[in-house]
């Protein structure tokens, strides 16, 4: 999966999980603020992303994964690790 494809699928999944139209979401925009999430909702969103992508975000990075760009980068990074 190319990075644009990965970004598109993450954006689509976030829109599905949050039930919001995220077409206008900028790559570096704070997701938690954009969606108006509380800390628990943010955690649940990450858990659902992990489940759907079969990923496991590093616990120490959970607080940093607040933008589309950061999520795509982390998933891409994990994909590379899986390939290697």
């Amino acid at each position, binding site marked *: 999966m190319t990075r644009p494809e990965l970004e598109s699928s993450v954006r689509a999944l976030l829109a599905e999980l949050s039930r919001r139209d995220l077409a206008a979401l900028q790559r570096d925009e704070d997701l938690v603020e954009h969606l*108006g999430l*509380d800390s*628990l*909702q943010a*955690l*649940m969103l*990450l*858990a*659902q992303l*992990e*489940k759907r992508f079969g990923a496991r975000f590093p*616990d*120490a990075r*959970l607080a940093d994964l607040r933008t589309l760009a950061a999520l795509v980068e982390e998933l891409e990074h994990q994909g590379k690790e899986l390939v290697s």
Partner: protein
Amino acid sequence: MKIGLIAMSGVRVHEPELAALGVSLPQFVHRGKVIASLPSLGLLTVAGLTPPGHEIAYRECAELPPPGAELERFDLVGISSFTAQIDEAYALAERYRAAGVPVVLGGLHVSLLPDEAAQHADAIVVDGAEGAWPKLVEDFANGRMQPRYQGLRAHVFEDANRAMPRFDLLRGRPYNRMTVQTSRGCPLACEFCAASLRITASFQQKPGQAVLAEIRAALAVAERPFFEFADDNSFVRRAWSKELLRELPALGIRWFTESDISIADDEELLELLAASGCAQVLIGLESPDEKSLVGLDPHGWKQRRCDGYLRAIERIQAHGISVNGCFILGLDSHGPEIFESVREFVARSGLLEVQVTVQTPFPGTPLYKRLHDSGRLLAERYWEKCTLFDVTYRPLHMSVAELEAGMRWLFSELYNEREFLSRKRHYMELVKARG
């Protein structure tokens, strides 16, 4: 007539080492900030109970001019305070009275120690403001205010007695959390409890439509606020609770409340809670083993439920509702082994959040009377130390120093980044397993 209603707020810790440690404990600091940022529902309700024709100003104590500076002019001032801040409330009352402004004091502490409070006020309101405040304002306006007004202890939420809190007084102010109350009192009646149970004759339940109307009123003055239900034990009456919960999804709110562990028994209730936007329930577990819970409540309810704590926590959290588990250190059965015991239980429980406090004999509680009568209180008057983090009595099976040191150790074990992340990870895996 212009009436000033002043809320005393904030979390305080007197013991210096613990206060210093508190600065570095992320969850402790976070919860302290949350509590400090909540508006006073009691005073907003008092505002709502005020007869028409009077101007009301709501102020937080932190907004007031410092001692020596000129005070805002009011015709009458009402101050509400919990025990830990009561001396500050008394000092503030003296400032206003010295400036010629009559002062009314109310709240839980005033209700529990009315004779003490009466020395610092022109009038006091005992128990709830319902049934007292409208008469007080009318009497004041007519120049015949009495020194003491008794509020209702029953039928508090009947239509003729209750009023919509004046959430509109918060318009334009930076509150992102709002409180509503669905009930007062708690049938468990734990010995230590100094909450609304002490100002009600029995469990009082607000009509569901009134709760919904209050939420809508609060939504009109703040953008997407997080709601805290200011209850001591929500969901005591299940049929009523479910009826309310079925109405909440349409409001699209996220909210928090306090309950007891029995909610885990009711699958339908948990499903409704999850669908209604309930983010967290705070549950008083108090202690991790049943022997230590003997005598805590008159019916031995918590002792009987203790064996099922772990399964119940998992079941609630698996519905996407986090549990804030509360423990009290220094119960009469506790020796120095309790600190490791709580740490180990928390690690096994997967609780997303944990609140650990020290047993506190608030004046007016059965616990206070018992410790006072047995000569175990460290001072005759210690209200400024009723913070839930300062030791004010002699424990039975350890020294004061051991309790203080053990609490500091437990705080550092529970409130650190590693444990915080571990609890987050456990919660995420529960959410993933549920789908």
